[in-house]
C-alpha cells in the first residue's frame, strides 16, 4: 500500500538502481570510485567532506584554544589572536567552529548510517516478505513518513529534558528512516521476480541468504544514496533542534553555537560572526553531502550520465518534493 497514489509506482524506477543481476559489490565500488574522480561536482564534494573529517578528527591541530574556556576578552572582534573574534562569554569563535565539527559530523554520520540500516531492514523485509508483514511494516513506515518531522521531534524530545546526543541520534533515526525504507521497498518489489533471485530460490537458499547476498549488493548505490540524503537531512534537522536548545546546549557544535548566538542577540549586538560562521559551515557540510550524492545519482541511473542536464530525476517523485519541503521546514 502506498500513501501517495500514482507516485508509488514511480518510486522504484524513478528512485533508483536496477543494476545487472548479481553484480559483485566490488565492481560497484569500482564504478563508484570512477564516478567520483570523473565528476567534478562529486570530486569537490569529497574534498570538502575530507576537510571536514580532518577538522573533526584533529581539531587540536588547527585550533589550539579550548573551545569552552571563557577566558578571553568578551565580544571581541577578529584579531590575530582570535581569527573570528570571541563570544559574549569570552570563548574563541574560531576554536568553537573547528571543535564543533566533531559533534555535528558524528550526528550526521552515525544517525545517517543507523537510519540507513533501519531503512534497509524495514524496506527489504517489507518488499521481500510481502503479505501481512509487508502491510504492517509499510503502515508503520507510511505513518512516520507523513507526520511532520520537526513537530514530532519536538514532541518526543519535550518529554526527555536533558536529552544528550544519544537520544538526539535515536530520535533522528526513528523519524528519518521512512523515506529510504520506502524507496528500498519499491526497489525490492521490482527485483523480486528477477531471474537471479528465482535461481537462488530454486537452489533452495533461505530468505536471509537471498536478501543479504543477492538483493543488498544489487542495491549498493541506492543504499549509499539513501545514506547521503539522510545525512544531509540530519545535519539540517539536528542544527534546527540544537538551535532551539534541545539536547545538551553546553556541548560544542554548530547548532549550539547558533543557539547561544541567538540567545545573546548576537545580530543585534554586532557579534555577526558568532551567528554567521556556524551557518556557513552547516551549509557547506550539507552541500558537500549533496555534491557527493550527484555521483551516486549517475551510477544508480546511467541514463542521466549521458544527459547531464537532466541529472536530478529523483525529483520526479512528489514524495521527494514533500521530503524536501519538510526537510527544509525542519530547519
Amino acid at each position, binding site marked *: *500500500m502506498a*500513501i*501517495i*497514489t*500514482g*507516485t508509488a*509506482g514511480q518510486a522504484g524506477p524513478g528512485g533508483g538502481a536496477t543494476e545487472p543481476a548479481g553484480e559483485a559489490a566490488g565492481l560497484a565500488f569500482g564504478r563508484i570510485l570512477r564516478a567520483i574522480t570523473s565528476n567534478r561536482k562529486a570530486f569537490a564534494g569529497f574534498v570538502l567532506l575530507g576537510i571536514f573529517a580532518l577538522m573533526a578528527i584533529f581539531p587540536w591541530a588547527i585550533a589550539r584554544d579550548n573551545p569552552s574556556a571563557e577566558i578571553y576578552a568578551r565580544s571581541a572582534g577578529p584579531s590575530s589572536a582570535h581569527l573570528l573574534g570571541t563570544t559574549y562569554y569570552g570563548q574563541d569563535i574560531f576554536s568553537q567552529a573547528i571543535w564543533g565539527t566533531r559533534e555535528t559530523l558524528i550526528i550526521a554520520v552515525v544517525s545517517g548510517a543507523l537510519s540507513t540500516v533501519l531503512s534497509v531492514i524495514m524496506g527489504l523485509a517489507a518488499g521481500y516478505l510481502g503479505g501481512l508483514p509487508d502491510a504492517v511494516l509499510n503502515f508503520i513506515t*507510511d*505513518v512516520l513518513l*507523513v*507526520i*511532520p518531522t*520537526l*513537530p*514530532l521531534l*519536538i*514532541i*518526543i524530545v*519535550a*518529554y*526527555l*529534558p536533558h536529552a544528550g546526543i544519544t537520544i538526539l541520534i535515536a530520535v533522528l533515526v526513528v523519524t528519518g528512516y521512512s523515506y529510504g525504507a520506502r524507496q528500498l521497498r519499491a526497489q525490492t518489489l521490482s527485483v523480486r521476480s528477477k531471474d537471479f533471485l528465482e535461481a537462488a530460490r530454486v537452489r533452495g537458499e533461505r530468505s536471509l541468504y537471498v536478501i543479504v547476498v543477492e538483493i543488498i549488493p544489487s542495491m549498493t548505490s541506492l543504499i549509499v544514496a539513501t545514506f547521503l540524503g539522510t545525512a*544531509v537531512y540530519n*545535519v*539540517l534537522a539536528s542544527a*534546527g533542534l540544537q*538551535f*532551539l*536548545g*534541545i539536547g545538551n546546549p553546553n556541548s560544542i557544535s554548530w547548532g549550539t553555537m*547558533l543557539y547561544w548566538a*541567538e540567545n545573546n542577540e548576537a*545580530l*543585534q549586538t554586532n557579534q*555577526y560572526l558568532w*551567528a*554567521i560562521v556556524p*551557518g556557513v559551515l*552547516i*551549509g*557547506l*557540510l*550539507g*552541500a558537500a553531502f*549533496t*555534491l557527493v550524492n550527484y555521483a551516486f545519482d549517475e551510477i544508480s541511473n546511467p541514463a542521466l550520465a549521458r544527459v547531464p*542536464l*537532466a*541529472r*536530478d530525476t529523483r*525529483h*520526479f517523485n*512528489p514524495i521527494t*518534493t*514533500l521530503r524536501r*519541503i*519538510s526537510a*527544509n*521546514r525542519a*530547519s
Partner: protein
Amino acid sequence: MRFALRRVGFFVLTLWACVTLNFLLPRMMPGNPAIALLARFHGRLNPQSLKAIEIAFGVNTHQGLWSQYVGYLHDLLTGNFGTSITFFPQSVSSVIRAAIPYTLGLVGITTILAFVLGTFIGIVGAWRRGGFLDSLLPPLFVVTSAIPYFWVGMLMILVFGLQLRWFPYTFSYDPTLNPGFNGTFITSAIEHAILPAVAILITSIGAWILTMRNTMITTLAEDYVKMARAKGLPGRRIMIDYAARNAILPNLSGFAMSIGFIVSGAVLVEYVFNYNGVGYLLVQALNSEDYPLMQALFLLITMAVLIAILLADVVTAIFDPRTRAAR
C-alpha cells in the same frame, strides 16, 4: 471505489496512530514529566486545572490505562484540549485559534507563490534548455537546499532589518496596534511578514523549479510534442498546452501535499522572527513545558497533513486517469 476506501482507511489509521502516540508518550517516558510540572505549578494553578492536567497525563489517578484512554478520546472528540499553561487561564483551543491566521497568511501565501513562480521558472528553464536560467539554477539549488531556513532568516534580519532598516523583523504586527480589519493593522501585518516570507521563498522555491524542469524535459521528448512541432504549432502553445500541461502533475500533487505543511508552518523561521504563528507557539510550548498545548498543536499539524494527502490523492486521480485504473 476500492481505491477511495483504501485512502480513507489510511487516513483513519494514521490519525488513530498519532492520537495514540500522543496519549502514550507522556505515560511511557521515564520519570513522568507531568509530575515535575505539577510540582512547579502547585499553588499557581487552581485545583480544577491541576486536576485536568493530572487526568490528561495519567498522574495520581487510579483509573486503568484503558479507561484513561477512553476518557482521552472523549475529550478529543468533544474538542476539549484543556487549559494552556503558558497562557493561563486561556484554553488551548483559543490560543491556537489566535495563532492560526498568521501562519496561514505567511506560510500559505509563500507556499502558493513558491509553487507558481517555481513551476513557471521550471517550464521556461526546460523549454530553453542550456540557456541562462537553466545553467544558473541547478547549481544554485545545491547551495540553497543545504542552508537552514532559519539561518537565512537570521541573515535577512541582519541585512534588511538591522542594517538597512527596511522592514520590521520581530513579531507579526506592530504590538501597539489592536488586531482588527483596518488599513493600519493590515499594512503593519504585511510589513512584518515580508522578511520571513522572503526567507522561506528563497529556500523552498528550488524544489519546485527542479521538479518541473526535469519532468518537462522528459515530456518534451514525447512523440506528441514532436507531432505538435511537426504540425508547425507556435512554440508557446507547445510549451504550455502540450508539454507543461502533462509535466505539471508531480508538481501539482506535491503542491497539494505542501498545503498540509502550511499549518505546521516554518517552525524555526517563525521562531527567529518571533512571528506569533503556530510554529512559534509550538516552540513556546516546548520552552515552558506546556504539554497540553504541545499535544493539541501536534494533533492539529498531523491532521492538516493527512487531509492534504487525501487531497493530493484526489488531485492525482482527477488529473491522471491511470492511477484510477491501476488500483
